[in-house]
């Protein structure tokens, strides 16, 4: 155990929404700097897990705990969880018309890092990262995700991750809806950002395509609200050749 690295522990977590249990006793540890992938078919509860970690108001934790560095975060507000260094890349980022993308990110950056980053440094990093992500046009002036294409939304999420520099990032299907070129760009940028900041990653996907460009060390398979397999790259291979059927005993 490394005392300086942030540690997120999920212990026997049960989550329900509108009276229906979606996550049914899930345990998972993620440390800063580690690279995990969580695979599972549609509807298994992956997105719900990401939102529960972030403290979504409609999700009820009925049993179990989530801890950061040994302290429960169950009673923490969403923004305070973000300030601890947890980041969620949304599978479907919402659109808010009228809030400038750059303005918002500038505000969020201020909330996360105080006055340690000057506006001109912020703008510089914003521009450089946008270029690396191959954003076409001037997306800074556009409203937050409003009218963004599927690919632009995901790139926008990665751009936010790059600027906000979380310690642990949950990436909920950063590959869905993207063409091959875009998947490659997103994957390579995430790899670079994570390496530079020693970010711990929980990559969520139901499709192994993005794994051509990303090399997670820990693999978990989730089915019907539970983790049914833990391991390494061999599990990805098993999913690729036999699908998820093999894991439903």
């Amino acid at each position, binding site marked *: 155990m490394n005392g300086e690295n942030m540690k997120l522990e999920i212990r026997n977590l049960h989550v329900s929404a509108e009276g229906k249990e979606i996550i049914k006793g899930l345990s998972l540890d993620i440390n800063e700097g580690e690279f995990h992938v969580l695979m599972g078919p549609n509807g298994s509860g992956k997105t719900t897990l990401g939102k529960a970690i972030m403290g979504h108001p409609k999700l009820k934790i009925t049993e179990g705990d989530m801890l950061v560095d040994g302290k429960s975060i169950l009673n923490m507000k969403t*923004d305070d969880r*973000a300030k601890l260094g947890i980041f969620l890349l949304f599978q479907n980022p919402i659109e808010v018309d009228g809030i400038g993308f*750059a*303005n*918002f990110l500038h*505000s969020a950056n201020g909330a996360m890092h105080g006055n340690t980053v000057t506006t001109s440094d912020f*703008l510089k990093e914003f521009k450089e990262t946008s270029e690396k992500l191959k954003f076409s046009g001037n997306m800074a002036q556009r409203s937050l995700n409003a009218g963004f294409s599927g690919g632009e939304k995901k790139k926008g999420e990665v751009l936010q991750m790059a600027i906000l520099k979380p310690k642990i990032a949950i990436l909920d299907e950063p590959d869905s809806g993207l063409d091959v070129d875009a998947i490659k760009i997103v994957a390579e940028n995430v790899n670079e950002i994570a390496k530079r900041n020693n970010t711990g990653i929980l990559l969520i996907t139901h499709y192994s395509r993005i794994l051509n460009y990303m090399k997670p060390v820990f693999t978990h398979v989730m089915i019907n609200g539970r983790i049914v397999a833990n391991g390494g790259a061999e599990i990805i291979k098993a999913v690729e050749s036999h699908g998820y059927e093999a894991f439903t005993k």
Partner: protein
Amino acid sequence: MDYNEFKRESERQFAEQPQEGRDMYKRNFIKIPEEYFTLNGKSKSGQHADMVIKALKDNFGIYFDVIIDGKDILSTSRFAKIVDMADADSGLLKILLEKYPNNKFAALINSKSQKAVVITVKKGESAKINALVLNGEDPVYVQFVVNVEDEGNIEFFQFFCSGVKEKSATGIINIADIGRNANANFIAVHNEGSETAVMNLHHTEIGECSRLSQHFVFTGGSHVKSMGKVKLRGQLSESETNEIVEAVLDQKMDVNTEIVNASKGSAGILESKAVLSDNSVCMLKGFATIEEGATGSRSLVKESSLLMDNTARIESIPGMAIREDDVKATHSASTAPIDEENLFYLLSRGVDRNSAMKLMVDGFIGGSVLKIGDDEARGLAASIIYEKLKNKSIGLTPENKADTVYEVVRADEKAEDMLREHYKYR
């Protein structure tokens, strides 16, 4: 007609007319309690006036040419003449009576006003006038009659403010006539006190090839009754009316504006936005009329509102009367509560709840605030709107500089336009 007849006629209409006489609004209007019509407070705003004038000069760079403090009116503008109602010529009295036939509020203002402000911009001249209207316990009733001749330009900004917590009233009639090839930019920021009833009447007619841009900000007052009309009288005339309503606590606002396309190729836009919190109530009543013969004219009426609390109430009542076929008319009304999913997204980036709410409000009305063309007036309006969002303060004089609550980013600054002018949430 002499003043005595005028006064008698106004008093008669006030006594006889209901607050709302039109069938379509009979069930949807804010009623101003009768007691507001008979107030007879003695105090002027007194020292408050000096404080407001100084704060606006120091913090916003705004200097006033016309100052109305209770019954006292002062003008230092060569364009604005103060006329004693008792000495008014029959032409002026006729205009005041005829523009608002059988309107209880116009009748009240006309019967009580002792002085009117007559603004004349002669052919080809340009005028910029800033007017401050302060009410103390003593209500203010005043008429502004504006006449812009052909090729004239006017920028007219009115700021309403009161220094009282007691019941009071402000009643304003604005009548403007814009000639041909002229330009008018009207801005009115209503920031009256929390117990002041606000009656705001405006009527503007626009001549051939002229352009009107007008902006109303309603943040003050206990009850706000705004009734306005824009008549696109001349061919190819254009108007843009931008209304921003921000209501909190028990504020009640009733904003009714009619845009009339009365000539060929005229174009009118009315955009109203309301942000409502607590138990506030707002009625947005935009109305588009296209008269027969106004071929090729365009009309757009758009009303939208954002509800911050589920106890707030909005009624959007759009109306239309189209009497010509060859036109383009669009009407829309939308209402949305603060969206929990949107909020969750903003919070997940580390922004606290309060700031996230403000960002969402800024997202909603920021574009409308930006449209206010005058930098100083916009800074003041923004600072009042965002201060109020923070403190629910009604009618306070903004003692904060514009840029402490609002980041004004101008094109010539280095931010390269990336960070648009916006609410500064920290």
